[in-house]
C-alpha cells in the first residue's frame, strides 16, 4: 500500500504526504475509507462499516472501497 496510507489528514478533508510534499483533498467517504485503511481494516470490513455509516447497500460499498483502493495505488505510482 502506498504512502497515501500514512497521510496526515485534517478534519476538513485535506491531507498532506510528508514524504512527497503533496497535498490532497478528499470527500467524506474517501476520508472514512482512508482512515479505516490506516487502522488496518481489510476491504470487506471497511465496506461493512461504510455501509452502516452511510446507510448504503453492502454490495455498493464493497465496489466503492475496492475501486478507491485502486485509485490510491494509481496515485501513489503517479507520485
Amino acid at each position, binding site marked *: 500500500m502506498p504512502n497515501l496510507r500514512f497521510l496526515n489528514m485534517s478534519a476538513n478533508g485535506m491531507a498532506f504526504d510528508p514524504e512527497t510534499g503533496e497535498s490532497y483533498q478528499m470527500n467524506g467517504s474517501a476520508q472514512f475509507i482512508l482512515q479505516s485503511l490506516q487502522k488496518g481494516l481489510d476491504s470487506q470490513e471497511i465496506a461493512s462499516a461504510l455501509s452502516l455509516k452511510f446507510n448504503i447497500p453492502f454490495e455498493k460499498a464493497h465496489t*466503492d472501497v475496492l475501486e478507491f483502493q485502486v485509485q490510491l495505488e494509481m496515485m501513489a505510482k503517479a507520485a
Partner: protein
Amino acid sequence: MSNDYTKPSIVKVGNPLYAKHGSSAQSYHFVRDAIEGVKISDLVAQYGSPLFVFSERSLRLKYQQAFKAMQRYYPNLVFGWSYKTNYLNGICQVFHQEGAIAEVVSQFEYEKARSLGIPGNQIIFNGPHKPEGILRRALLEGAQVHADHFYEIEDAEKIAKENGSPITIGIRINLDSGIYPLWSRFGFNLESGQAWAAIRRIAESPHLRFGGVHCHIGTFIMDPTAYSRAIQKLSKLIREAESLVGYNIEYIDLGGGFPSMSQLKGVYQPPEVAISSVEDYAESIGKELQWLASRKPAPKLCFELGRHLVDEAGYLITQVVADKALPDGRRAYVLDAGVNLLYTSTWYKYKIELDRDVPGMMEPSILNGPLCMNIDVVDEAILLPRLPRFQNLILSPVGAYNVTQSMQFIEYRPNIVMIGENKSISLLRRKEGLEDLNRLEG
C-alpha cells in the same frame, strides 16, 4: 441509500484546472433544470437519452434580430436558410415561415427544399458538385445558381442552348479578406484574375446572362471588418463587370460565416467577450454597400446564415453511463452521446450544464462518449463534482452541423424534438431502429 453519500473521491491539490478556475473550482455553477420551461427530467422520461432539443423561440428570435440589423442598412434584403447547417424539416420550416428562402449545396438539398414547397426561384444553389441533371432542373426552375468552376459555366451554357433561351447565372468568388484560413478552394479567385475570366466567359456567351456575385469568406468569422474588406474588393469587380455586360447586376450574395455564441477551442476569452454582435457585422457590411443600397432599385443583398441562426437553439441531453479513475488522476465518465452525435466537438468546447445541483468536491474530469473508439472525447478537461450514474448533462450550443453531420456509427441516432413557442413538444425526427438501417441493405 443515504442522501449525503457520495462515492469516494480524492484529488491531488495543484491540478492546473484548479489554478485556472480558482475559487469556482469549489462548486459547479452551471445548472439548468429546464429548456424553454420544459423540465429536462420530463424530456428524458418521454423521449429517452440522448436527446437533441431545439427551441423554436430561439430560432425565430435569432432570425428576426439578424434580419432587423441588416435591414437598417440595406433595403432589398434576402436571407437564404443554409440547409447544410441543419436540414431537419421542422427547422427549415421555421425559417421559411420567417421569410427565408433556401440555400442548398447539393442535389439532395435542392430536392429537399423543393419537397418542402420552396419554388425553384426561391432557392440559392451553391456548392462544387452540381451534377448536370439537377443543375438543369435548378436553372430551368429559376434557381439562383452560382457556378463554382468553369465546367459548371459550360454546363449551364449547354443547358441554355438546348432550352433555346438565355439563362442567368452567377459565380462564387474567393478572395483575401485578411482572415485565415483563406478559402480558395471554392469558386473563382479574385486576385489572380480567375473571377474576371469567369465573368468574361459568361458575358461573351450568347446563351448566358451574368446575374451577380457570391462570396462566402469563411466560417466563424470573428472580425466584422473582414466583410468590409471583402466588399471593397467585390465592389470594384462589380463596377467592372457591370461596365463589361452593360447592365446592373441583380444581386450580391455575401454568404454567411457569422459566429454563434460557441466557445472555439484555443480562444481564451468566453464568447460573450470574444464575439461581436450581429449589429457590428451589419454596420461593417452596410457602410460598404451604401453605393448599391442607394440604387433604385437596389440589387438584392443575400445572406446565407446558418450557424449564427440555429446553433444556440440546439441542446443535447446526455446521461452518465459510467465512470472510473484514470492513472493520470482524472475521473473519466462515459456518456451515452459522443462524437457520433457531436461532430463539432473537434473545434468547440460546449457549455456543460447539470439538471440539478450536485454537491461535492470538484474533480478534474474527462467526458468520453459511448463509442468503443479512443477518439470519442467530448471534453478532455473539465472540473466536475462526482456525478452519479444516469446524471443528466445538457450540452450547448449544438444546433449547427451536429444533427446533419451526426453519424450512424456504432449507436443509433437519437430522437430530436422541438419545444414550440407555446411549450408544446414536437418530434422532429424519431430515433433510428435496426429496421431503418436494414432497409437500405439487400
